[in-house]
């Protein structure tokens, strides 16, 4: 390639990048305006219910990466958890501020008092209960063993003895594995941090993982993974929203719980669950496991 052509090409690339940068900037402003409009709508609702004094907003730290609970599509934060909180905002007359943050930082936000609650299909675990107060349970997630399609000889935990499992140590799967295999002699554990259990399993780096029955097919299809769920559910997660213990949020927690109860009673919670998850997962007995 001669020098002039090379220069022209690199110049072109830079121009394209700059152009999309600026295009991006203006697009961003538009989304902000849309967001502001949404906030204004919420604020309007707030004013209607409590004309006297505006209540403090609720800050919710969420992943933004978890389909269909809290995820981003077309630069818009959406999902089951997002809709539940938006509704809580309308009913409590409080503005809901969502903070999108990496999984690792989500609990950090609560710990640092920078967020009131966290939302990302979070499980109630014994370890977490020591540090956090949870709202009432709003969803149940049965977890099943997941293996590659060609695996035929795994149907229960004992079939996995001597094999490699990828898991998140702080979540329900960690809690379950600790009770199933407390001395860590049966199953070789691979800790998940920042990566994707789906990828690792699909690529054959591990033999199994646990996946949520309710959203298995949705996530599997999206990544086109050649994996399947087998056997009965091994444990069922109880999902709720945590806030920091002894942080003066007792009243707020009661307020949120009252609204969650109301939403459960009038069917809003089930409706939102069906809208996003495709089934009513707010009641444990409603979940029917089918292959």
């Amino acid at each position, binding site marked *: 390639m001669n020098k002039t052509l090379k220069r022209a090409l690199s110049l072109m*690339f*830079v121009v*394209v*990048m700059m152009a*999309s*940068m600026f*295009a*991006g*900037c203006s*697009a*961003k402003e538009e989304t902000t305006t849309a967001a502001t409009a949404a906030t204004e709508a919420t604020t309007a609702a707030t004013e209607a219910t409590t004309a006297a004094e505006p209540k403090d907003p609720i800050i919710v*730290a969420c*992943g*933004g*990466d*978890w*389909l269909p609970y809290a*995820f*981003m*599509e077309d630069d818009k934060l959406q999902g089951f958890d997002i809709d539940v909180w938006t509704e809580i905002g309308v009913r409590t007359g409080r503005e809901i501020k969502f*903070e*999108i*943050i*990496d999984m*690792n*930082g989500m609990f*950090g*936000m609560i*710990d*640092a*008092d*920078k967020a009131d609650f966290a939302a990302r299909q979070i499980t109630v675990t014994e370890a977490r209960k020591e540090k956090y107060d949870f709202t009432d349970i709003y969803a149940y997630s049965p977890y099943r063993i997941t293996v590659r399609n060609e695996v035929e000889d795994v149907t229960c935990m004992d079939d996995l003895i001597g094999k490699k499992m990828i898991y998140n140590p702080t979540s329900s799967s960690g809690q379950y594995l600790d009770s199933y295999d407390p001395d860590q002699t049966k199953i070789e554990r691979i800790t998940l941090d920042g990566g*994707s259990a*789906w*990828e690792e399993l699909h690529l054959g780096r591990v033999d199994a993982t646990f996946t949520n029955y309710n959203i298995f097919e949705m*996530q599997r299809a*999206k*990544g*086109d*993974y050649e994996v399947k769920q087998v056997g009965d559910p091994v444990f069922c997660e109880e999902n709720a929203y945590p806030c920091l213990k002894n942080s003066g949020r007792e009243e707020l927690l009661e307020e949120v719980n009252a609204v969650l109860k109301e939403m459960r009673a009038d069917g809003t919670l089930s409706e939102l669950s069906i809208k996003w998850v495709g089934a009513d997962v707010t009641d444990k007995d409603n979940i029917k496991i089918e292959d």
Partner: protein
Amino acid sequence: MFELDFFIDLLFSLPKFIPVTLKLAFLSLMLSLSLAIVLAVIRHYEVPVLNTLTKVYISFFRSTPFISQLFLFYFGLARYVTFIRDMSSTFALVLILGLNTASFMCETIRGALLSVDKGQVEAGHSLGMTNLQIMWHVILPQAVKVAIPPLSNNFINLTKNTAMGFTVGIIDLMGKAKLEAANSFRFTESYLAVLIVYWVMIAAMTKVQSIIEEKLKNKY
């Protein structure tokens, strides 16, 4: 398999997050560079007390992982210090990244200061110049030339370290790519796209570096 459409869409939608990353990098650079110059001068003249403190500072920031510094500050200390709690994540990242990079840059600059021959300092003294005058008129102009290549190394590392922003909630280039990857389950496409954007961005910075070097070459 590899979804070309998704990849190309992302390749053109990611650059709109370049300003976020560049802003973080530029602000951190300003902080780290000015702090590093002060620290390097302290080290160079072995200013009593301050020299020891600087050594501890450099040792701490160079020997511990950046992510642990950031988390201790932003999440850990926030519980006890209201000023940190109310701090924006951008400010916190710029501050810690600036402090971190300053420790590396300080050593870079100190090395550059040492590269100027002692004889010139003595010559300066014989002309009745003060230490500060010698630093400003004799040593610095020559040291800058030596310092530019390693300093731009530091700057490149700093720019890439801004990718840690999403762990404290800043949606920068890397944060956007992570979100895209997680939501689409398309890891290959997302990370390849973000790599290319970083590459082009930093290659452009390197271009600026060589222009500066070229300009300085003709002096002295």
